């Protein structure tokens, strides 16, 4: 299925589409206000972009530096070539310690690796503890947004879900009361858990430290209560120095939600006490391959703030599930086809090339240029429908020949004006679905321009 086919399901509910669009635009506006309040915002983006590219150009050295420092602090570092190995490492760690109950905080990487299904298949209970993630987990669906996992749902739907699965009184639709229900339910799970799994926002090479940001404090409860903490990190998340974290923190929450900083920004340097364990799984899963691409490697600079999703006119109106990838939106449309071109060939086309994503990206990833790069590569590799390739070849042939272009234009204006509107629309399908063709003009732009120039004596 293509992006537009999946989006059709979402847009069928016009009221939901409007509301989704408006909510995300509201978040975008909050981001703008937060950014405007920082006098050195643009310079900060330059610096962040520069640090990330610098780091990406020397990942092996940084990870070796990290590993040495982290080991010294008692962190156990594991390496995973792909998703399968990542899941196996995590499962082995749990099994060796007889862990049957796990709490997990938000991590797009574990989503990418399919960790939950892998653990569940092995009989481990995994509870996602971010409220939005818990909601979508109870609904047995993936998150629709990397920062706001349940942004596609209305409060009444959450109320129904909680009544069904958590035993709350039916008809509850007040966000505060619903949050209280979830809080009580999750508090029990935190206490019962034998291990906490988290993602990582920043790995610091210099100190061997991990920095994890949340608003709810769920990663903190999940690592402060159980004795075992397993963190998963993608290869791209490393920064050289502790002081670099300040640069990214000033950008991250402002870009994500318009807050100045998340409520909890936790720094881990080894297990907190004797008898406690901290394991880190460093995951490649296609990242080194992406790093080798001449231009797309820059997409590894992403700090997963979600700003490009919130601003994207296509994302806002088509919903995160229409992308069918762990990370949706503009950045997802860059990452997914790079990993698996055949499965995600329509995503780079779910884009008007307006460039709004690149305008807001805190680390200045040229997202719309990268989508264009994908389009060219997908077309060249024959992964786009033949119809589209032939249409583009035809357009190229005509546009290269000015006389042919003029002649065909003349013909189209003569014949087109006489064709019934319905037939014209069929010729324009599927483009004309939901749009009307404009009336064809009597003369071409060039003829008009020539006539006016003559009149004005130029």
């Amino acid at each position: 299925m293509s992006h537009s086919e999946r989006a059709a399901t979402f847009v069928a509910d016009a009221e939901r589409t409007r509301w989704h669009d408006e909510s995300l635009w509201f978040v975008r506006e909050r981001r703008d206000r937060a950014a405007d309040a920082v006098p050195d915002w643009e310079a900060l983006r330059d610096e962040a972009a520069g640090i990330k590219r610098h780091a990406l150009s020397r990942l092996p050295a940084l990870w070796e530096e990290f590993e040495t420092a982290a080991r010294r602090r008692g962190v156990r570092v594991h390496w995973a070539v792909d998703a399968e190995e990542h899941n196996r490492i995590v499962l082995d760690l749990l099994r060796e310690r007889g862990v049957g109950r796990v709490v997990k905080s938000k991590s797009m990487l574990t989503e990418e690796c399919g960790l939950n299904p892998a653990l569940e298949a092995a009989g481990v209970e995994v509870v996602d503890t971010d409220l939005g993630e818990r909601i979508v987990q109870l609904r047995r669906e993936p998150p629709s947004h990397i920062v706001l996992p349940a942004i596609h749902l209305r409060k009444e739907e959450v109320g129904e879900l909680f009544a069904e699965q958590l035993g709350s009184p039916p008809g509850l639709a007040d966000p505060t009361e619903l949050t209280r229900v979830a809080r009580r339910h999750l508090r029990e799970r935190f206490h019962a858990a034998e291990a906490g799994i988290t993602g990582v926002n920043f790995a610091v090479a210099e100190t061997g430290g991990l920095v994890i940001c949340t608003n709810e404090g769920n990663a903190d409860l999940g690592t402060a209560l159980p004795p075992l903490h397993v963190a998963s990190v993608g290869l791209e998340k490393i920064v050289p120095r502790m002081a670099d974290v300040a640069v990214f923190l000033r950008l991250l929450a402002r870009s994500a939600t318009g807050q100045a900083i998340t409520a909890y920004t936790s720094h881990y340097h080894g297990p907190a006490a004797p008898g406690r364990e901290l394991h880190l799984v460093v995951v490649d899963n296609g990242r080194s391959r992406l790093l080798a691409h001449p231009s797309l490697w820059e997409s590894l600079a992403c700090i997963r703030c979600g700003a490009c999703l919130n601003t994207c006119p296509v994302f806002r109106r088509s919903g995160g599930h229409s992308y069918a990838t762990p990370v949706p939106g503009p950045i997802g449309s860059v990452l997914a086809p790079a990993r698996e071109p055949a499965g995600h060939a329509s995503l780079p086309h779910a884009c008007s090339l307006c460039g709004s994503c690149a305008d807001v990206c805190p680390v200045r990833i040229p997202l719309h240029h990268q989508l264009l790069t994908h389009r060219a590569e997908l077309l060249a590799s024959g992964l786009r429908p033949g119809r589209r390739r032939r249409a583009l070849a035809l357009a190229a042939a005509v546009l290269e020949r000015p006389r042919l272009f003029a002649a065909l234009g003349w013909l189209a204006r003569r014949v087109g004006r006489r064709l019934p509107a319905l037939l014209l629309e069929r010729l324009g399908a599927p483009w004309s679905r939901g749009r009307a063709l404009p009336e064809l003009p009597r003369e071409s732009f060039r003829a008009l321009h020539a006539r006016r120039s003559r009149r004005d004596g130029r």
Partner: protein
Amino acid sequence: MAGSREAVLGALRAASPAPVPRPPTGRRPAAPEDPVAALRQAVEAAGGALESVCDGDLAGALARLEGFAAAARVWSAHPGLESRGLPDGPEAVEALEFAVLPGLLAVAECGAVWNEPSPADRRAALLADHLVLAVPEDAVVPTLHEAYARIRPAAEPFGWLLAGPSKTADIEQSLVLGAHGPRALSLLLIGGPTR
């Protein structure tokens, strides 16, 4: 899985783009004229409250916090205050009304406070209803850059920046305080004793 380590690092070596030099350190914004006012604004935006305390009178400031005088269970990691009403055992922290922690510094631009808790203090700070952070008045820095120049996160296994109470907006973008942790946060700026 030594094999995977070599495989990953080897793949990275083969794939690394040409070296990109480190960018110059950015010019940092000028310090706000009134750092305490800026801090207050940031703390309130994060859903917390800021109280300036003269004469180093922590006890007096705490007594003015709503519910503190009557609170049965108070956890203190602050040298200037005794815990009270704590039962023994690990459940002790579940029903805490207040947790009081010292903060090393506060960041005016974002309202965050740096603290290095022991594992028990950390649990208390997460499970109490109302978190109180006490920071010396002269430890307000303009931005996170100055904060990171002062703190030494790697010196302790754990340290955190705390900004406002635990919060979520995952249901229809409505902000709810107290998603998992404290529902309220008070930052007390402690002025030196005027002797």
